[in-house]
């Protein structure tokens, strides 16, 4: 493994750790739908950046920031129409993103892939992971109270609207980190599915956070290992192409099925 491959692997695993933790709080906040929309909002940014020859992650970052602020405003309204608006943004972002993304880059933008990583990009990535982990560690008490009851949280002196905005920004940063290897269509799943696994298997907060983080890291590690050694899987006459993004999310989904069966039993 070259050092650039090592950087990419380490950053992918650390991103998985962050995604598991952020996903746990997102699930408790019941914002899986809004979270999924945020990941799709990255696509038009990616596409436009590719079109104009700019760094695609920079385009994605700008689109994510705008999407985050938009969703934050919609959530603040707290009306039924929020769901409708989120649905419109989701399909609109996907459609516009698909239109503007050059066709040769579309599959990678949607489903990601393993790319080597230079040292500067690796260091920026590590810094972003640290920001996410620090936020979760220092703000978890406020998040817990906000999740339990926004009214009680506000009465305790917490600025609920600010907590919501910061959490959405952390969520978007996690999406941005995962975008490189999972793509705009699948990155949301790394935040949602491991948390769903953790919730099936645990009953306490600490166990839930730990299990979600572990499930996320395991999904990425197994996905990376499979795609490192195999490019495709042949079953009889059928050949399955093993791309990184779909493989990671398939592993996560299989783990979810196991966790579901275990809970049922």
């Amino acid at each position, binding site marked *: 493994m070259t050092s650039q491959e090592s950087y990419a692997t380490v950053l992918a695993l650390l991103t998985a750790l962050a995604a598991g933790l952020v996903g746990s709080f997102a699930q408790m906040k019941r914002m899986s739908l809004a979270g999924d929309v945020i990941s799709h909002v990255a696509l038009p940014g990616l596409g436009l950046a590719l079109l104009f020859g700019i760094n695609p992650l920079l385009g994605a970052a700008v689109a994510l920031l705008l999407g985050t602020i938009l969703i934050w405003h919609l959530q603040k309204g707290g009306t039924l129409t929020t769901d409708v608006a989120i649905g419109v943004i989701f399909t609109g972002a996907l459609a516009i993103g698909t239109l503007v993304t050059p066709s040769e880059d579309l599959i990678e933008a949607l489903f990601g892939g393993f790319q080597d990583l230079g040292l500067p990009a690796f260091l920026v990535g590590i810094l972003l992971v640290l920001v996410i982990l620090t936020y979760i560690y220092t703000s978890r008490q*406020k998040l817990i*109270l906000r999740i339990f009851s926004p*009214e*009680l949280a506000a*009465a*305790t*002196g917490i600025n609920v609207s600010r907590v919501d905005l910061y959490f959405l920004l952390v969520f978007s940063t996690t999406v941005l980190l995962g975008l490189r290897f999972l793509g705009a269509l699948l990155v949301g799943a790394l935040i949602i599915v491991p948390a769903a696994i953790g919730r099936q298997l645990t009953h*306490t*907060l600490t*166990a839930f956070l730990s299990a979600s983080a572990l499930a996320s890291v395991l999904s990425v590690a197994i996905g990376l290992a499979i795609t490192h050694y195999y490019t495709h899987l042949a079953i009889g006459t059928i050949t399955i192409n093993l791309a990184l993004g779909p493989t990671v999310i398939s592993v996560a989904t299989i783990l979810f099925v196991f966790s579901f069966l275990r809970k049922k039993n």
Partner: protein
Amino acid sequence: MNLLNVKNLSVLIEQKLLIENLSFELARGEKLCVLGPNGAGKTVLLRALLRLVPYRGEITWAPDVRIGYVPQKLEADRHLPLTYNDLFEAKCKTINVPTKNTVEIAQSVGLTKEMLETPVGHLSSGQFQRGLIGFALIGQPDVLLLDEPTASIDEPGEEHIYELIGRLQNQFNLASIMVSHDLTFVSRYATTVLCLNRRSLCIGSPQVALSPEVLKNLYGEAYSYYHHTHC
């Protein structure tokens, strides 16, 4: 000095005047009960006092006052993996008070260690409500704001919660502003009663405010129901 002075308070939400020109005071240790029919603005009043809704007029709390709040009918998500241990700790760390006092608070509201470690969605309604009262007591409040604290509890449990609130108020010398429909409790515990129907209809001792004339004026036709079931 009073704990709270409210002067000419009005609350207008979505073009609807919910509280109009309300003035009252609250002294240390005073037990103020707020009575009124549904939609009279009782919950809105507590939310305005907590500055959770926009208002006009003056709400002046004593400097450094500590307020505990028990909301009405809080529906806990049954799927949350949160326990009162988590929530008590979260509140302590948010308002910077030591977590060790939570053991004493849990005992004073009758929560066992096992209940503290049970996810909140799995507690009975009475246990859940005791936890909310315990949550409000963290940080040694000077005043409790309670919004129909027995709204989601069956009758025998309701009696226990009222007894608990009365005992805690005496134990910690707490002032309180409580919204309640239970006239028996109000007459037994309140030192002052505020009859509210968007405007203040009457404020005074329970003997004055709970007179049949005032209650009929407050509740209208529904008064006979309250009279038969609670008095």
